[in-house]
């Protein structure tokens, strides 16, 4: 019966900043273990969508259901209420987020970055947190760097620490927002390989990316967003094959050059 209920279900998501409507009724479903990439031109709302799922942004209408739990809001007497901070924090800890700009804690070592959430959110003891952190750092190829501070690491290494930090929390779902966009070209591949590795391990991933070849290789499905809406949602072979919508064809033509 497990396959009946999706892990993540976004229904009719509406989000506006002031009078600007950024998400105009987005629907998206992920099953457990599925890897879905979101592509789309700049400003189409990809980052905003991920930030809503991780409850870093409020949204005005629609539901996000994660593993059977409606997150972010409760309905009392027909009115939506944003949940309290403690509750939001608990729900956030169920999803991991990897940012374009790494956002490591600069005052903590690589191991310290991974351990903070394990200690304060998951309430592991120090020894156990450290051993989980070491395990994840070696998983991303940084066993020898665990006592380095972020400023002592390359961009690619920092991003791999950020991936370890997100995955060590054992999230149900990991959101990745253009995780290679801020990297020098020669560092892109090591990070993409790391993401590919965790995808092969069966993690559920929602990936925003401009790396089309990567999206094609790693994803079960590719979603094309345009102007705050999902325009296409199909297996990569279909998306990158004979593109159906004109908007997608145009987007792909522009990114390939």
């Amino acid at each position, binding site marked *: 019966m497990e396959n009946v209920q999706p892990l993540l279900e976004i229904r009719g998501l509406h989000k506006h900043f002031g009078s600007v409507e950024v998400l105009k009724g987005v629907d998206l479903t992920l099953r457990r273990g599925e890897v879905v990439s979101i592509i789309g031109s700049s400003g189409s709302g990809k980052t905003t969508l991920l930030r809503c799922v991780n409850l870093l942004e409020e949204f005005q209408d629609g539901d996000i259901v994660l593993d059977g739990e409606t997150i972010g809001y409760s309905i009392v007497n027909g009115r939506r209420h944003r949940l309290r901070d403690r509750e939001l924090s608990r729900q956030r800890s169920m999803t991991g987020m990897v940012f374009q700009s790494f956002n490591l*804690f600069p005052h903590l070592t690589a191991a310290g970055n991974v351990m903070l959430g394990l200690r304060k959110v998951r309430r592991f003891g120090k020894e156990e947190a450290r051993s989980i952190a070491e395990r994840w750092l070696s998983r991303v190829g940084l066993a020898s760097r665990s006592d380095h501070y972020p400023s002592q690491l390359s961009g690619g290494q920092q991003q791999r620490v950020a991936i370890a930090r997100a995955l060590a929390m054992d999230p149900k779902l990991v959101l990745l927002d253009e995780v290679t966009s801020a990297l020098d070209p020669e560092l892109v591949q090591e990070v993409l390989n790391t993401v590919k590795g965790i995808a092969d391990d069966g993690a559920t991933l929602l990936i925003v990316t401009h790396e089309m070849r990567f999206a094609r290789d790693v994803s079960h499905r590719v979603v094309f967003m345009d102007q705050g809406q999902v325009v296409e949602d199909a297996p990569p072979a279909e998306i990158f094959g004979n593109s159906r919508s004109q908007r997608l064809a145009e987007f792909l033509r522009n990114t390939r050059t």
Partner: protein
Amino acid sequence: MGYTLQFGAIWASFDKLMSGLAIGLGLAIAAVAIGTCFGLLAAFASVGLSRIGRMIVTCYVMVIRNLPLLVLVLLVYFALPQAGIRLDKYESFIGALALYSGAYLTEVFRAGLTAVPKGVVEAARAIGLTRIQTNVFVTAPIMLRNALPSLGNTFIGMFKDSSIAAAIAIPELTFQARKINVDTFRVVETWIVASGLYIAACFAIASLLRRLERRFPKF
């Protein structure tokens, strides 16, 4: 005609000056320690969600910054007993200096807070830290490192301002120097020695702080 400097009588009371110096340092340490707590609370409140909190901080900083320290010290010293709060002169002075340094540290910490990258705070929230946990384990340490140089300067300033405690007869360095003046009439010598002690102490504090800054490298 020249004034002949004679330090002999001063050296005889040098231990009094040194104990005065120690008291001044003690007052400054206690006041800045408490003032740091005020400053931290006020700085977080000033960027916090509560509108009343932000208003209280604005008033606090505005009032204190527009009040001469001597006046604040006398006000606390004479007014609190009328309000039924009994403090000895040390407690009263430390309280006044803590209030005073707290207002300046609020500004220091607020500047440090705005320099904490927003994305780093979001990363902390994203792994599920609550707002308070994020402040304690992420924002505050980064902000304190940003603020360390200004914190040191404020401490040196407060140490110098501890001379104002002489006004309520706390036997710190300035008070002792005045007493030696009365006893020996070697006024110039006394103030030369007292100045030398202030300068030497500030210099020593500054170099200690520089070492501390090096212990915690910039990110």
